[in-house]
């Protein structure tokens, strides 16, 4: 086993999570390789220092405090108030969208251009006699 591989396995070895075969190989390498052993010792020192941080002092009243705050009913039962709130929110959104859509359609509908209409105009003294004229054109003459 080379140093690169041992270096990668050191942390797992330290956590005692390596399989026995790999563990033996790492141990044998550590016996022979000074650089890896130095790395290993550094890692051991670090974890030793980490473990030196003491757990916080226990509060003797902690269980009592928790028990005093336990809810009366443990099981999450159907609660009416949130259900009504959700229903009202849903209804409000639905109605808002519905009326917005309705008012949009009405507004757009009012502005819609009417279909072009043509009026038959009798042309006096002309050979053509009858001519279909667009209303907009007719409006120009009427002005």
């Amino acid at each position, binding site marked *: 086993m080379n140093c690169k591989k041992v270096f990668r396995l050191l942390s797992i070895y330290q956590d005692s999570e390596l399989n026995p075969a790999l563990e033996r190989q790492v141990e044998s390498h550590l016996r022979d390789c000074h650089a890896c052993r130095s790395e290993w010792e550094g890692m051991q020192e*670090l974890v030793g220092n980490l473990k030196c941080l003491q*757990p*916080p002092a226990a509060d003797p009243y902690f*269980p009592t405090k928790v028990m005093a705050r336990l809810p009366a009913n*443990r099981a999450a039962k159907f609660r009416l108030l949130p259900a009504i709130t959700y229903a009202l929110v849903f209804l409000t959104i639905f109605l808002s969208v519905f009326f917005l859509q309705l008012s949009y359609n009405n507004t757009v509908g009012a502005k819609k251009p009417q279909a072009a209409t043509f009026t038959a105009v009798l042309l006096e003294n002309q050979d053509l006699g009858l001519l279909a004229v667009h209303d907009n054109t007719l409006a120009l003459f009427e002005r």
Partner: protein
Amino acid sequence: MDQQTLTDDEIVSAVLAGRRQDFEILVQRYSGKIIHFITRMSQDRDEAQSIAQEVFLKIFQNLPYYRKENNFSAFIFKIAKNMTLNWLNREKRTVLFSRLLAWEFNKAPFRQEPPLVSHHEQSERDGDIMRNLRLLPEEQRLALILKVYLEFSYKQIREITGWSIPKIETLISRAKSRLKKNIQLQERSREVVYTARKK
């Protein structure tokens, strides 16, 4: 029956059957570990107590969803992990918002991060460790704390976090290397300052 000999599953069954007072045995059994875990994650001892209370209330509410084939310890630490990470994220947002307000109105921020070295950690070395633990990325810190302080196996950490074993191996290994490097750097820079002052 003696309380100490009851298994977690037996206590859970009793609580679910209506013996609410038995929940106190679970609180007594796990409060030390849960508070230790939250303290190391949040680096705030006072806040850890109140988060731990919320964690136990959540555990009580979620007892009906606990499956006996799973590990009870993993079940409660999963809840503790989720609630602590939520608290950390909320705290980050509050600190950021407070800074923004302070910058906008030119006043002192109403919320600041807890000091890097708490007054509880007396020695310089403990201070270094606390500071560097806090500077680790959140996932690395979580994996390392679960392994080193709670002494969970990689399989139990997988149950708590949902991460794969190779990911856990990598996170813990990187966390150790990073901590080791940072602590060495700090020690070296302290030595330089000390020598300079001596001169």
